[in-house]
């Protein structure tokens, strides 16, 4: 004869409800539930929650769109099965790649334009230079403004050329 439960244990009832008890424990709980209205109520509540969740599930699954998922999966499958040249074409024509390629080309063009900007014509910057025993003079001309610049340097005493 199985010994009855000495006290109510809600978690034990929950495990009983889920079929998670061994034979001996299950028999003890069953005997207890027969004589304990509060544990009987706990069991009823557990069933009530399961039933309500079942109703909830029927509402939840209304209006599910499986077609979109199906289309997505089949598209991927077709892409994976496609020959390499088709994949390459798709890759290069994909929006992401196309955008990056356009942006890179734009930057490259801009760079080329800047680097190839017309360089001002001669004369060169240095027009002439004169070096003497004590000093040197360089005459420069600014390339764009054509301003003349004189640069004079006097050597300190005792230093030769």
């Amino acid at each position, binding site marked *: 004869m199985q010994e009855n439960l000495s006290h109510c244990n*809600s*978690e034990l009832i*929950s*495990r009983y409800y*889920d*079929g*998670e008890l061994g034979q001996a424990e299950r028999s003890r709980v069953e005997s207890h539930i027969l004589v304990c209205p509060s544990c009987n109520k706990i069991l009823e*509540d*557990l069933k*009530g*929650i*399961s039933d*309500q*969740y079942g*109703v*909830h*599930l*029927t*509402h*939840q*699954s*209304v*209006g*599910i*769109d*499986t077609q*979109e*998922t*199906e289309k*997505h*999966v*089949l598209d*991927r*499958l*077709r892409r*994976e*099965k496609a020959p390499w040249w088709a994949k390459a074409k798709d890759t290069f024509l994909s929006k992401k790649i196309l955008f990056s390629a356009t942006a890179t080309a734009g930057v490259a063009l801009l760079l080329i334009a800047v680097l190839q900007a017309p360089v001002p014509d001669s004369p060169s910057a240095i027009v002439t230079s004169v070096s003497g025993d004590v000093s040197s003079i360089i005459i420069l001309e600014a390339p764009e403004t054509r301003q003349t610049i004189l640069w004079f340097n006097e050597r300190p005493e005792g230093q030769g050329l």
Partner: protein
Amino acid sequence: MTYGWTEDELIERLKKGQEEAYRVLVREYHSRLYSLACGITLDREESQDILQEVFLKVCSNIKRFRGKSSLFTWLRRITVNESLNWRRRAKRRFRWKHQPLETGGIEGGPEPGSEESGPEAMYQKKELEKSLNNGLNSLPEEARTIFILRELEGLSYDEIAAQLNLRKGTVSSRLFYARQRLKEFLERDQGEE
């Protein structure tokens, strides 16, 4: 048997990349996996996206599927992981408020004219549904996932523990807590009427 094929045949066809097999896969498992994803994320729109990801993962990984578990067990594992990852990544629970699952009438309800279709009964059902939604929404992610795996999938405590990498005792106590909380919500809202 799925659409006249055994599971092994379906897997074989999936490995060969047959479109029809993928159609069957989506039609056969979408609804159940969607309920699972929706139960964890509480978001219809995201659950659709998650399912797309799940099936795309099947596309990529089916050749590595060794059949140690059933096909559905594998799909379920991917779905649970994807759903939990989504929640951890995004933390966009506010969207739940914009896309409540209880929106609209009670579809699939009783036949018009029956006793259960009266306005009062309909109202009560709607309120109960709302209370359950609120309760599910209030549960911590882990407790809710355990509850969903138990109630929706009928998994044993051992199976849930293995799926979520938890101890069996933790599964038992979290599940008990989840039910207590849902019961409180259902009773409180019923008591307010």
